[in-house]
């Protein structure tokens, strides 16, 4: 039998601050949404919408993904994180950059604060890339999941660099084509290159693991990786250099790649031994179902259909909402409760396990709050999408209230876990193990 190493987990101060920041950012997102119901009636290039998008993409999604990934990278790559100091520095730059960028967009202050914010974010992405690449180099074996994760980090950096160029272009115009042209590139490589690839890479490992499903055949994942990256590279080159009418083809490549991933998960799910699906996994399946909406809409927005301008504007907005407030938010709302309780539990009880009776990770948060969080989220999302499509501010406000409520419930649960302390532990008494 070959001996294995012990845990590769990083320290809790590397990971947990990301969850705290992300929860607060999600709450800020809900509150900002309450004050932005007037912004959904026109074009997506609107200061409030840009603020919402960047708080969602950076403060909420990227922040929690960074934190979770520092914990999960050693699981997926089977080796220790390269540097905890780099991770902490990246957290500082990402946090500061996000706050400054959100302030700049909200007030549409395009001067030095936005420049500093963009530079800070790019530095965070560079540090993250170094950490991911150097960790991957130490991995004992290279897998398709490693490909997804490393490539997604590169796309994140490219997204940040395009964003930085756009920020500079605000005050010192040098880009040859109008701003929204680059915004489309920035948004799509961020959504598909960073979020999608990263989520697929990690999800392909974790979702079967949580279901106790062992699925070895990774052909569909290989196809998924190749199709999505082919679509993204072709889209980027075409968008920058040629501007042909082939956008739907590139979109179809990405959609086909995602479908391969979903088929992979379906095959894995068939072999699962766990029949109990907890609330965290239920919410994850909701997220995967919601993924179908942006997949459909990307084909619509890339096809340049002759729709009325007002409808087209609404479809663009729903497309963005379906990615950030739909798929990504739903996934985080579920997966937080599949990762954070275990991280906190491990740090709180590692000195007590085997000597004292300890609670289980699932006992560390309120299931009632989580159930209501999932319900208010779904209601909020449906109302928000309906309100934008119908151009009804009252309905949008209903959606914003739903999201704010969701964020409060989520944050309460997250901080309940973050502030958890081991206390009143009883030593083991030997008898019937089943009753322990």
């Amino acid at each position, binding site marked *: *039998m*070959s*001996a*294995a*190493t*012990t*845990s*590769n*987990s990083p320290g809790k101060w590397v990971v947990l601050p990301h969850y705290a920041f992300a929860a607060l950012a999600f709450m800020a997102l809900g509150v900002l949404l309450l004050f932005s119901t007037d912004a959904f009636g026109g074009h997506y290039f609107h200061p409030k919408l840009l603020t919402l998008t960047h708080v969602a993409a950076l403060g909420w999604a990227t922040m929690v993904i960074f934190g979770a990934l520092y*914990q*999960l990278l*050693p*699981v*997926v*790559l*089977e*080796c220790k994180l390269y540097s905890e100091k780099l991770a902490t520095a990246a957290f500082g730059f990402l946090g500061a950059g996000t706050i400054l960028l959100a302030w700049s967009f909200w007030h549409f202050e395009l001067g030095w604060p936005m420049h500093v914010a963009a530079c800070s974010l790019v530095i965070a992405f560079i540090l993250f890339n170094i950490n991911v690449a150097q960790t991957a180099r130490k991995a004992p074996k290279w897998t398709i999941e490693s490909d997804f994760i490393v490539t997604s980090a590169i796309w994140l950096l490219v997204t940040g660099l395009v964003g930085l160029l756009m920020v500079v272009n605000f005050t010192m115009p040098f880009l040859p084509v109008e701003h929204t042209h680059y915004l489309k590139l920035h948004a799509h490589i961020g959504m598909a290159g960073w979020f999608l690839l990263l989520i697929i890479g990690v999800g392909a490992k974790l979702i079967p*693991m*949580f279901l*106790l499903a*062992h699925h070895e055949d990774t052909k569909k994942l290989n196809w998924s990786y190749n199709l999505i990256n082919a679509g993204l590279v072709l889209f980027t080159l075409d968008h920058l250099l040629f501007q042909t009418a082939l956008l739907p083809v590139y979109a179809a490549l990405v959609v086909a790649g995602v479908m391969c991933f979903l088929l992979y998960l379906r095959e894995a799910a068939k*072999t699962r*031994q*766990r*029949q*109990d699906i907890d609330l965290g996994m239920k919410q994850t399946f909701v997220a995967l179902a919601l993924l179908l909406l942006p997949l459909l809409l990307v084909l619509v927005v890339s096809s340049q259909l002759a729709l009325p301008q007002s409808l087209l504007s609404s479809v663009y907005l729903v497309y963005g909402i379906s990615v950030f407030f739909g798929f990504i938010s739903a996934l985080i709302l579920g997966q937080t409760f599949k990762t954070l309780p*275990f*991280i906190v*539990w*491990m740090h709180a*009880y*590692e000195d007590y*396990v*085997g*000597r004292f009776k300890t609670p*289980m*990770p*699932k006992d560390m948060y309120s299931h009632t709050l989580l159930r209501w969080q999932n319900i208010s989220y779904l209601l909020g999302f449906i109302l928000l999408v309906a309100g934008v499509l119908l151009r009804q501010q009252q309905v949008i406000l209903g959606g914003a209230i739903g999201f704010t409520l969701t964020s409060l419930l989520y944050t309460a649960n997250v901080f309940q876990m973050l502030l958890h302390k081991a206390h009143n532990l009883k030593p*083991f008494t*030997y008898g019937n*193990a*089943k009753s*322990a």
Partner: protein
Amino acid sequence: METQNLPEDFGQEVYETLKYIIDPEVGINIVDLGLVYQVSLSEEGELVVDMTLTTPGCPMSGTIRTAAEQILLKRFPSLNVKINLVWSPPWSMDMITEEGMRQLERKA
């Protein structure tokens, strides 16, 4: 290091003790989950446990290993305890005991 088979009663007691350690994600003890491969006693009086995890790189590896070590030290204070984490053969669902499968089905 030479090892020897344990007297049946003692071996059973070790397995029963290890059943107190619950896999925090699955909620089933590590013995019925099939994670404990072998228990033996070295000539030096060291209790050696070869065990695995459901997936390599599991973030709980250190915690589960410590838990197994601590509970055995507490139960058998006169013995030294050594926990070996091994990946070969890799864990598979076939290793779950009948009792483990029953517990999984009960959770459905």
